[in-house]
């Protein structure tokens, strides 16, 4: 075929020639028609072939779009990626996400706002009817009416049949234990984003559906909160806090700060209740710091247990450092006695001999000059003197002039008693098969000596009321005047107690702290730590030991008594202790 024949338009000069014969013209026309039919047939067969293939594809193989849907249909059964749970160390739920329904309206679609608001207020009594009316009469196209309806409320609203109202499926954070873990767990905003506590620091992991097991033991947490609350009420304190830590892993088993708050209504009337005293608060711990001062002096070799120091008042500039009333105010006493009776002046002399640089280095080594490395957003930085002068060194020796968070204190004491390994504190349950991170900060020998000293404080020193027969509690009390504007408030104090048990093989550290406890009937006008924080610590230990299955030992076990016996020449006969400071 030629191009001339194909296009069929008589443009070629040959076709216009009149000389062509009729038969020849006819056969040319037939040929053209034939060719046209073949072309059309080809076009049609290709088209129908394509349609047919597509049909077969759709019917037999479900088509591309459909097959994509089918593969997606299966994993739809997997749980939707809601915010994951937080659980305690025994697997009890501390925070979880539940489906909930929220009610919204498109005011343009609401026919009679007045009637609608009246009927809504009848079904949802906690709605403000005037506000609902204003919302429904507004010009906007979307207003929330109520978030987080119960199924019953949803049913009731549905039954009203008001046009323009609609439901939105949402998720809602739910805390089965309420206030109990409010400071640890924190809370989320209404859109389920963490804005405080672990909810905030774990936001990414929880959003990705990764459930987290905490180191907290809910049973302990409840018991500690119970005891702490009772003690705060008894002593009319403004608040209090307590931490229990596993000395060998750094896991925080309980962390209570009172007053606490309702995670559903954070920031209620008392702003103070949002404050986590354990991590965000920093306090001058008072005599509890003598644990570190004594360890530092013994480690440096400038003092031994039998070194003698003067106990008469020390005059520094316009200040006088003296011992608690009732304690020795003069004479020479050994380091052992200074620690047992918690004497300020002896501690200051020990520090003076060792030197400020050593003190600074030692406290830094124990992590007391930095914020506690805990996974909470609410962490307070310690208040460290700048410059670290000679006078600051003297006051820090007995726990004034430097403020640390209770959690830092507990972490450092754990390192002192557990054989000398500093484990970073954690709120997550450690995998027992993994090695616990930690670094050696003091020698095992010094740790043993410190345990002996802390035991002496409980058997014959300031913390006798913390003793639990069989559990061999060791500890140290501290009482500090509360820092006020430009100085100290002599009438307000913070008392704290750090207890360790069993002291011959430490397992747990318990820290209790009370904010401004008052002297009550039965404490003979005293309000120092030995009268309130230490007994509280003892009660907590007496209840937590059986809970955790700690077996008590014979109080007269000669091997243990031998291990905890002080060197004979360090003890002063007939020196009464127990001013409970």
């Amino acid at each position, binding site marked *: 075929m030629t191009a001339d024949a194909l296009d069929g338009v008589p443009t070629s000069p040959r076709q216009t020639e009149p000389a062509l014969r009729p038969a020849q013209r006819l056969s040319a026309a037939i040929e053209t028609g034939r060719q046209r039919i073949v072309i059309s047939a080809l076009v049609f067969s290709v088209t129908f072939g394509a349609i047919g293939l597509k049909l077969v594809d759709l019917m037999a193989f479900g088509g591309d779009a459909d097959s994509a849907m089918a593969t997606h249909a299966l994993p739809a*059964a997997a749980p*939707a990626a809601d915010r994951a749970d937080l659980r305690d160390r025994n697997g009890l*739920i501390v925070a979880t996400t539940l489906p909930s329904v929220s009610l919204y309206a498109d005011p343009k679609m609401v026919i009679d706002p007045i009637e609608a608001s009246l009927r809504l207020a009848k079904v949802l009594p906690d709605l403000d009817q005037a506000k609902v009316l204003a919302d429904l009469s507004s010009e906007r196209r979307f207003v929330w009416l109520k978030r987080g309806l119960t199924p019953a409320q949803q049913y009731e609203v549905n039954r009203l049949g008001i046009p323009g109202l609609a439901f939105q499926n949402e998720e809602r954070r739910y805390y*089965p234990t309420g206030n109990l873990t409010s400071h640890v767990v924190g809370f989320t905003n209404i859109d389920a984003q963490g804005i405080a506590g672990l909810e905030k620091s774990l936001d990414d992991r929880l959003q990705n559906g990764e459930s987290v097991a905490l180191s907290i033991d809910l049973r302990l947490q409840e018991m500690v909160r*119970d005891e702490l609350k009772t003690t705060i009420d008894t002593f009319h304190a403004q608040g209090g806090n307590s931490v229990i830590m596993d000395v060998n892993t750094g896991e925080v088993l309980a962390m209570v700060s009172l007053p606490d708050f309702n995670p559903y209504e954070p920031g209620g009337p008392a702003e103070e209740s949002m404050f986590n005293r354990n991590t965000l608060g920093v306090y001058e711990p008072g005599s509890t710091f003598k644990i570190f001062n004594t360890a530092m002096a013994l480690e440096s070799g400038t003092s031994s247990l039998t070194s003698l120091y003067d106990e008469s008042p020390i005059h520094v500039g316009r200040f006088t450092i003296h011992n608690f009333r009732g304690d020795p105010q003069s004479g020479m006493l050994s380091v052992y006695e200074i620690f047992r009776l918690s004497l300020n002046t002896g501690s200051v002399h020990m520090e003076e001999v060792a030197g400020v640089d050593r003190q600074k280095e030692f406290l830094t080594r124990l992590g007391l000059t930095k914020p506690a490395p805990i996974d909470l957003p609410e962490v307070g930085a310690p208040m460290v003197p700048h410059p670290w002068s000679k006078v600051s060194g003297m006051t820090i020796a007995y726990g004034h002039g430097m403020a640390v968070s209770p959690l830092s204190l507990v972490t450092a004491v754990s390192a002192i008693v557990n054989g000398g390994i500093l484990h970073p504190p954690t709120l997550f349950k450690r995998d027992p098969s993994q090695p616990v991170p930690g670094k050696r900060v003091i020698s095992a020998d010094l740790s043993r000596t410190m345990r002996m000293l802390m035991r002496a404080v409980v058997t014959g020193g300031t913390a006798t009321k913390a003793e639990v*027969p069989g559990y061999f509690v060791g500890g140290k009390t501290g009482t500090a005047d509360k820092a006020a504007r430009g100085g100290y408030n002599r009438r307000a104090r913070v008392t704290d107690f750090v207890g360790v048990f069993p002291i011959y093989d430490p397992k747990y550290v318990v820290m209790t702290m009370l904010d401004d406890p008052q002297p009550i009937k039965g404490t003979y006008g005293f309000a120092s730590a030995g009268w309130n924080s230490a007994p509280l610590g003892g009660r907590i230990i007496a209840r937590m030991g059986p809970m955790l299955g700690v077996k*008590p030992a014979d109080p007269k076990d000669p091997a243990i008594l031998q291990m905890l016996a002080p060197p004979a020449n360090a003890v002063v006969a007939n020196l009464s202790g127990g001013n409970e400071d």
Partner: protein
Amino acid sequence: MIRVGTMIWLGLIGASSAFLFKTSYEVQSLEGDLRGLNRSILREQDSIRVMHAEWAFLNQPSRLQALTDQFTKLRPIAPTQMVASAADVPMPLPSLDGEPMAPPASLVAQVDALPSFGPVPLPAHRPGEGGVLLAAAEPMPVQSQAASPQPAAAPAQPVVAPVQVAAVEVRPAPVVAPVSAAPVARVATADVPIRPVVAPRRPTAPLEAVAQALAPTRAAASDDPIGALLSGLEAPRGIR
């Protein structure tokens, strides 16, 4: 004229189309089922989550504590109750003819070796709830039996018979148990150090007082199965 071959082909086409349609509709209905199942799985998962949350809510330690205070006489375990494990409890087996055997000397030595404490302090308890019970129990003289001071005096008596012995001292009139003189001599006074393992501290004397104190909460023991069960447990036959 239609050839036979064409007929066969047409028949095959018809048959395969019919089969294709049938399969296709089957697949559609199965997919519908799958979607329904997936939806119900999600629903179930949601309700499981709700129930987990409810379980956690009902297991709040504070709630359990309140229930325990209200319905049982259980109190927090005191450290002194943890002295020994079950393996340490001396439990002489009766001989085959029913006669109780004397504890072997090694067991007696083992009991003697157990740590002893001073008078057992009552476990710390909240001053608020459960105070009634505690108040009733507080003045109770702690009855105990020093099992081992004179084990030779009553070799025929099994070590574990504290309940009857204690009952004899408290309520001398109805001496029901066949107690010989020797065990009475073994009744310890309250100031003798207690061996908590050997002498279970059972509140014997003021049992009635305790029951009275509990009366308001336990009045309707008959229509409350747990209460009935507990009252059955609380009154062993040897005492009342």
